[in-house]
């Protein structure tokens, strides 16, 4: 059964009760051990791979050297034949033949190293993917556990602080009311601010003798005098 399915079954089965673990601690530990084992295998495979690749490079260099030597000796053999020295040519040809069998052995070794290296590379890649997958699964188990434990910590905190959990709608209403109050205050402050600036403008205009006439005693007297006439 996949980890996903296990967690789902456990949650649906009501394992969400406080204190009841989704996947028991023991199997989590075993799982962690498996991951560590896989990682050890991976390290070993990588080390082996380095060794094989070094051998592969050495074999490849050896193959090149023998090939060069064969070409060189083929040149010597031709030169010996040109000088009609059949015996020398034969000796060189024997040397070439020995080199060729050495080449074939060395080539075989190289092929085998190459095969090994490729196999190990595949193994390393596969193991790396496997470890990643194990870690993803472990993370699912651990996250589920952590959420459960966090939930019980939160629940304990709520019940100990005696704070009553509001319904979602009530919470929203209260938050909106607070927001409204804040907005109103902001608006009120703005209105007040603009009134203040109106007042100051009026004062400035008055000082400059512009705008509203003042109902001073003098102006009242002037008006009464005008009526008498």
């Amino acid at each position, binding site marked *: 059964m996949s980890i996903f399915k296990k967690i789902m079954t456990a949650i649906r089965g009501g394992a969400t009760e406080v204190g009841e673990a989704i996947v028991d601690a023991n199997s989590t530990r075993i799982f962690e051990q498996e991951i560590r084992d896989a990682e050890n295998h991976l390290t070993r495979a990588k080390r082996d791979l380095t060794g094989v690749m070094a051998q592969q490079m050495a074999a490849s260099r050896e193959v090149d050297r023998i090939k060069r030597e064969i070409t060189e000796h083929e040149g010597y053999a031709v030169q010996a034949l040109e000088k009609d020295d059949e015996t020398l040519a034969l000796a060189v040809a024997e040397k070439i033949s020995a080199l060729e069998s050495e080449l074939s052995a060395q080539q075989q070794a190289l092929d085998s190293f190459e095969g090994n290296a490729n196999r190990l590379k595949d193994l390393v890649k596969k193991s790396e993917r496997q470890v990643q997958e194990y870690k993803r699964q472990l993370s699912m188990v*651990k*996250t589920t556990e952590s*959420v459960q434990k*966090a939930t019980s*910590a*939160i629940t304990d905190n709520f019940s100990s602080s005696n704070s009553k959990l509001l*319904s*979602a*709608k009530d919470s*929203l209403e209260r938050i909106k009311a607070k927001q409204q109050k804040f907005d109103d205050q902001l608006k009120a402050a703005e209105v007040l601010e603009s009134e203040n600036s109106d007042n100051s403008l009026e004062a400035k205009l008055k000082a400059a003798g512009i705008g509203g006439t003042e109902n001073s005693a003098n102006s009242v007297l002037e008006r009464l005098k005008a009526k008498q006439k």
Partner: protein
Amino acid sequence: MNIHKIANHLNALADNSETGMVFDCQPISGEVDVLQISVIGREELPIFVSVTDDQVLCITYLWGEDEVVPEKKADMHEAMLEMNIPCPLSSFSKIGDKYVIFGALSISSSFEDIEHELAVLSNNALEVIDDMSDFLL
């Protein structure tokens, strides 16, 4: 990353957060460390943050199963599933008998990422309750 670093960062922000929100952090002790984060003005919908081996989980409780209009439950589930992708950064889930909205971040997230996540989560939570209120008692 751990909840104490997050708490220190958010408390140090005070009024200078990028998001304009003011966060109040309070650690809750238990088997797993949990940080209760209240956004000022939205104390009724706190965000709970916990840190695991590879992620930072931010969870807000939305409503209880008992707050759902019984005959509208299936419709509500459908609506929540459909909203799951459009809803920025947050997803829905259920813990026990409580519906929750949550965001999960990589453990290597920056403080700015976490702050952004919390602000978006808080906004999402408010909006979701508003939008889903037809399904609720």
